[in-house]
């Protein structure tokens, strides 16, 4: 459908206002909300994610595309329930305790939202127990941890341990990322997944969510 394809392409170039207008137009024309979301907004965002992964676009392009996506989603959200739109699952994300970096974490958040996840952003310098508490209270299937410092990456293990201690380790997947983090480190601390970039993180999250009991 042309209108949905326009939403996707306008989102890809970050035209927030145009996306908003087109989404409203689609709603007025009774296009199913699920289609507007999936074939318009999320489709556009997934193309941006793929281009970002291939170094065809850079952080600003992702940022403005995400802004356009959010503008469109604002209009759709009131209709989610009646239209049977379900999120791909709930994720809580944050930068670990001691670390104030946020751009990597924010990029992953945007990519996750672009895949249809509901994301709870806990911000930076997040205590291990806050991750675990949030995962329990909000029924998150995945906890995403970010660290940019060699001195703070060890806090990731504390989150894994806290999840074990709270008895939710089997119910929740833990993903790690950030410049000093590697897959070897991920294995060492007993987390479930590591990815090197934000777009891959969102793809991995989809896989993990599907594997949850």
């Amino acid at each position, binding site marked *: 459908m042309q209108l949905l394809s326009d939403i996707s392409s306008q989102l890809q170039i970050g035209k927030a206002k145009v996306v908003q207008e087109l989404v409203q137009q689609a709603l007025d024309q009774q296009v199913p909300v699920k289609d507007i979301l999936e074939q318009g907004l999320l489709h556009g965002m997934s193309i941006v994610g793929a281009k970002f992964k291939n170094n065809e676009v850079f952080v600003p392009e992702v*940022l403005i595309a995400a802004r356009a996506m959010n503008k469109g989603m604002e209009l759709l959200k009131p209709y989610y329930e009646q239209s049977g739109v379900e999120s791909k699952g709930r994720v809580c994300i944050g930068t670990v305790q001691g670390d104030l970096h946020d751009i990597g974490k924010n990029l992953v958040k945007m990519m996750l939202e672009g895949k249809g996840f509901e994301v709870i952003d806990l911000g930076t310098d997040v205590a291990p127990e806050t991750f675990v508490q949030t995962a329990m209270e909000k029924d998150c299937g995945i906890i995403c941890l970010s660290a940019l410092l060699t001195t703070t990456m060890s806090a990731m293990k504390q989150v894994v341990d806290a999840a074990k201690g709270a008895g939710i380790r089997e119910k929740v997947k833990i993903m790690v990322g950030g410049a000093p983090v*590697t897959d070897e480190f991920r294995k060492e601390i007993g987390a479930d997944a590591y990815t090197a970039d934000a777009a891959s993180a969102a793809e991995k999250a989809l896989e993990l969510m599907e594997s949850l009991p």
Partner: protein
Amino acid sequence: MEVILLKELNLERFWEDEEKAHTNNCFNDEAQIALGIRMSDECVFDELQEPGTPWMPIERERRIELNKRYNDKAERIVGKRLLQENFLPLEAQLPYVKRIGEVFGGQYIYHNETEWLTQSVHGEQELEALLDRVDKLDLRDFLLPKNWEQEKKRVFERFGLKPDLMRHIRGPVTLACSIMGAEDLLFLILDEPDLARRFSDTITKVTLGIAAIMDEEHGTTADETRGFSFADDNCCLLNPAMYELFGYPVLRDVFKVYSPGKTDKRYQHSDSAMGHLLPILGRLDLNGVNFGPTVLVPDIRKHLPNARIDGCLHPMDFMRNDREQIIAQVRRDCEDGLKYNGVNIATAGSINNGSSLNSMRLVMQVIQNYGRRKER
């Protein structure tokens, strides 16, 4: 897995050749590719298995003791004392001179034993107000403490020391990301390019202003003492058009004043994936760079023919002392060095605590195995 057999390292020969390898900013046909790794103060803790935190200031006596012990070990492993052992006493220090982040309303704080520059504005209105304030600021009065003149005199009379120059600074993008948050900065450049231009111009003015004040305090001028360098890790966050608008003009204008000659230092450190900015940085004809581990010699050389390339060993692989990766990456950089010249084998980013002297020795061994020109 490929088993790599390296010839034993001849330490004496290595250091003899190493000295010559740095001639002409590492562009030469000397026997061996240059080594830029000299480790760092923070490495003492892991190497000596001593408690301590790498990024916090520590007492002078403890610093000297740790560095001496580290150097004893370094002498045995790599054949050289690497870290500084002479530190001036506390009385020789001048009082704190404020830094650029503080001019823009931020504060340098320690959080979790790491120094951070705090955010000072939220949104465009606050930024405009901040820039108005900075425009009216008496920079000298703001930067220098009240007791500056008497302390400067005391330190000079007692120790013969002049105030330090300010010729290295946090780069414009990294500074602006701290001051207003990374995402807000990106939106500012996209949505309000005129205000972003004004912000960039103000950064240039302040950078040149601080440098000129410290020149004067030291007793020199931009003409007499040349060279400038930037550390701008976050420049990778901008796309080329945005960097052209916001980051590039600052470097261009500062280098115009401080590095007008071909060999005057024009250096950029940004250990991130900023390869997409190379064509723009190429116009600055940088003569020294240290970029992130994904930005490799052939790409850099395409755009920066005169730059000494400090790199491109992944600092995290070096920190993990990953033998296989160190050999592969240093070998790659040696081969690129022989082909493109001007390579100084170093980590692509800062050296971290955990990087061992044995890994440095391994780097030296790889250079001696793969980074030698044919004997003349």
